[in-house]
């Protein structure tokens, strides 16, 4: 472990040799394994790692809410406060020894150490008003009247930049958007002006533009209140934006710790290097792709969408008359996909990108427009208006890869059965023929032959996504629609799956429609891009062109919000929020 800590101050929290374990049938599983860290006042320590690395458990151990885990070993020393503005604590306390239900730790929770969580949707009680959840925390730790606590809560909501806080305080969480809820959550955490804020992936569930706002807000509040922050994330880009100090976790251990600049400049551990490479490569066009395009130029259009529109009925109110409002999920979208080309569709949640993909694949039916597919013989067919039977040959030509690798494979079928299903249904009746083809496909996607007889539950997310790919390419399609196909995967696996898709493109003459919320991935994978906002394409063109010189205000706002995995460029861009003209 490299320890190049330059701070001379004593830390606020020192973690020493902490081990937090979960009792399993096969003995203890150490989710946090002998970890030592320091957190300093006014500084941000980023804890970075992939799923299952133990970073969440570590953060919960600080507040002693690690249950059902148990602290087996080590100390968590909370040092006396250094600022006069805060509560004077008698002396250093070892949190690891406290009774998790006792008064001492309860007094520390929320007052000295506060926490915000990943899921803004479920972290607030759905049946209590925002205000009552905040004032509860205030009145728990400070002896003030209800009215004073309410004033304070309004002030907190103002601090986290919630519009008209006097009204918002009496709202329920479900009346708030995701970003607003996370702001309310931050207000709740700040209620007693804590010295340490633990933030467990607070922006992961949010759109990238909202993420940028929340990160700015957290940094601003930190400066104002001189808080120490323990920030947990899996995203190197976010780390580069916010960290002072970084600790990389893997399998419960801290494998590398350094200040953010040194760590990004000279990563020591190979795992850190992999993480950094994965984060930085997705910011540039894939070399594999550019080389491929030089060898094999892009051909004629094979799929054309013309003025596609899809709307959903929103609500019908009233008993006697029906008033139907419509949600225009997709509005007049047009594009051409050429043979051997990758088109990216990028947008945030609610932009209609997934609905668009499902319209084109004809899982749902568009209400207006045309989907013109040119088959291998050059005949153009409009897919809109065809029934399931008539669509069959086209469904073999245009295939889909789904987002969630856990939901898209039938748990009751073996991998062979899953991959063979489209073969069987396209008329390959000979079992031996199918078996050979399945093995060939498994080989193509980099899975062993033995995988065929297994069930999906035996595979990890990345492997499952390979199975999905094998199923997609089984009937020799020409177009593949990948709907957030890599979003559910860890960063290091993500780039490997994308490279697999690119390799297959060259071997099998594929064209991709790549749907993603992640501009970085689109830049890596796609030749051209469509930027969607509220159902409309606001800008389209060459990926590089748009990523470097966006014209539409929304695209500019989106790009400025993407965290760049380079701490030296953290303040280079100015962020702003895009408001659609009404």
């Amino acid at each position, binding site marked *: 472990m490299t320890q190049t800590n330059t701070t001379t101050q004593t830390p606020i929290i020192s973690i020493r040799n902490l081990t937090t374990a*979960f009792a399993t049938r*096969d003995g203890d599983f150490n*989710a946090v394994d002998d970890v030592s860290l320091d957190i300093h006042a006014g500084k941000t320590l980023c804890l970075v790692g992939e*799923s*299952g690395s133990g970073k*969440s*458990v570590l953060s919960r151990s600080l507040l002693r809410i690690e249950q059902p*885990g148990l602290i087996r070993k080590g100390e968590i020393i909370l040092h006396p406060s250094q600022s006069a503005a805060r509560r004077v604590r008698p002396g250093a306390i070892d949190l690891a020894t406290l009774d998790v239900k006792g008064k001492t730790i309860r007094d520390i929770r929320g007052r000295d150490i506060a926490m915000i969580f990943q899921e803004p949707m479920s972290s607030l009680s759905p049946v209590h008003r925002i205000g009552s959840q905040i004032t509860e925390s205030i009145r728990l730790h400070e002896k003030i009247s209800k009215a004073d606590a309410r004033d304070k809560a309004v002030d907190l909501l103002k601090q986290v930049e919630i519009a008209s806080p006097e009204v918002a305080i009496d709202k329920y969480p479900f009346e708030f958007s995701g970003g607003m809820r996370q702001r309310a959550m931050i207000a709740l955490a700040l209620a007693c002006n804590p010295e340490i804020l633990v933030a467990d992936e607070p922006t992961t569930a949010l759109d990238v533009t909202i993420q940028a706002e929340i990160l700015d807000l957290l940094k601003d509040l930190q400066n104002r209140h001189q808080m120490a922050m323990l920030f947990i994330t899996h995203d190197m880009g976010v780390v580069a934006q916010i960290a002072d100090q970084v600790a990389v976790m893997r399998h419960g251990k801290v494998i590398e710790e350094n200040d953010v600049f040194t760590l990004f400049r000279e990563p020591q551990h190979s795992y850190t290097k992999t993480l950094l490479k994965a984060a930085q490569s997705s910011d540039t066009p894939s070399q594999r792709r550019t080389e491929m395009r030089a060898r094999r130029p892009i051909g004629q259009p094979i799929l054309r969408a013309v003025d596609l529109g899809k709307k959903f009925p929103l609500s019908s109110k009233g008993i006697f008359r029906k008033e139907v409002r419509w949600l225009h999920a997709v509005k007049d979208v047009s594009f051409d996909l050429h043979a051997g080309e990758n088109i990216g569709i990028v947008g945030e949640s609610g932009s209609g990108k997934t609905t668009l993909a499902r319209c084109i*694949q004809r*899982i749902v039916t568009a209400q207006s427009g045309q989907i013109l597919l040119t088959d291998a013989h050059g005949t153009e067919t409009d897919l809109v208006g065809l029934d*399931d039977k008539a669509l*069959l040959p086209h*469904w*073999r030509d245009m*295939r*889909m890869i*789904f*987002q*969630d690798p*856990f*939901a*898209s*494979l*039938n*748990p*009751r*079928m*073996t991998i062979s059965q899953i991959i063979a*299903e*489209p073969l069987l*249904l*396209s008329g390959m009746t000979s079992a031996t023929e199918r078996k050979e083809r399945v093995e060939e496909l498994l080989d193509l996607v980099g899975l062993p032959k033995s995988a065929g*007889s*297994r*069930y999906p*539950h*035996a*595979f*990890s*997310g990345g492997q499952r996504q390979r199975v999905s790919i094998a*199923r997609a390419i089984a009937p020799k399609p020409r177009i593949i629609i990948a709907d957030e196909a890599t979003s559910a995967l860890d960063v290091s696996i993500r780039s490997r799956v994308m490279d697999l898709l690119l390799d297959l493109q060259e071997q099998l003459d594929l064209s991709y429609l790549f749907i993603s919320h992640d501009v970085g991935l689109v830049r890596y994978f796609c030749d051209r891009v469509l930027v969607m906002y509220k159902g409309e394409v606001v800008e389209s063109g060459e990926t590089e062109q748009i990523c470097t010189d966006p014209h539409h205000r929304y695209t500019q706002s989106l790009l400025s919000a993407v965290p760049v995995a380079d701490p030296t460029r953290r303040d280079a861009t100015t962020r702003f929020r895009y408001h659609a003209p009404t």
Partner: protein
Amino acid sequence: MELQHTATPSDPRAADDVAEASQARLIWEKFRKHRVALVSLYIVGAFYVVALFAEFFQPFDPNLTSRTDVYHPPQMIRLTYVDDMGKRVFAPHVQKQKLTRDKLTLKASYAPVENERVFLRLFPKVETYKLVNLIPVNRTLFGPVNQGERFYLFGSDRLGRDMFSRIVAGTRISMSIGLVGVGMSLVLGLIIGGAAGYFGGWFDTASSRVIELMLSIPTIPIWLGLSAALPPSLDPLTRYFMITLILSLIGWTELARVVRGRFMAMRSEDFVTAGRLDGASPRRVIFRHMMPSLVSHIIASVSLAIPVMILAETSLSFLGLGLMPPSISWGVLLKEAQNIRSIAQAEWLFIPGGFVVVVVLALNFLGDGLRDAADPYSQHGA
């Protein structure tokens, strides 16, 4: 802590095993760990065996009356006795009892008769009967060594009929009514719930409303009303089917709701969409892609619906509006215990109630175990 979705046993060979284990096996493995449910499975199984081969388990004809043995109390089987020579002999028997009257109060009571025993044996010869109405058999599981002698393990009723044989006979009807009724409900529930879940739209709205309505009305008054409408002159078999039909007319709603809910949830699953895109016809989507995942849930719901049916039949017959003599079901038997005079005189008339409790309990545990096991990946449940 993030949940591990993949099975990660430490032994690599075991890993292979788990990887290639089908859903059915995973479910069975999980179910087996639920010990109470496993025991319940054996109990339920045993009851159905008795129900199927009821004649074989009856030492006597359940309708055979005996004027001398009215309200005969239950007798214990003893395995050995000490004979005249003072030697202990192995010979299963019951002590004979005789009806006596107290000379003063004239109260009737049974007193054991010294040295008179009814000896029992396995597989005694009896009059030829047809097992399951098909196979002619002339032996029962056990009975008196001397044909014509009587013994009463569970006592006798007001006509001196053997309660043990009657309970065994009742097992057949009570257990089968659960199965047949649930079978009918299942057909209705599958068709209506499945159609509602798969097609949605107005059919879904309409059927949901009907289900809601039927769930919100008290069942017993409705059952009573419907059975009261049956003509009393119906022959036992028709009545049996009509009563079962009435029970399932109400009973299908719960099953339909479960089926509909599961169908709805699964219809939007990606793997079902994937099946459709693979070119599967609606029929194949339903039967190849959706059904296998539904079956375990349906089995679990069914095993939870059977006890409801059994209880319903028992209650109806108890009130005199369900099955009627000469049909024998547990409810019909319990009707005998309806007035306080009979049960004060013959407590053993409660015994059929004990069987109802045991069977319903076992079926509930079984259903619970199945429901927990039905989703082998869920983290909840025992």
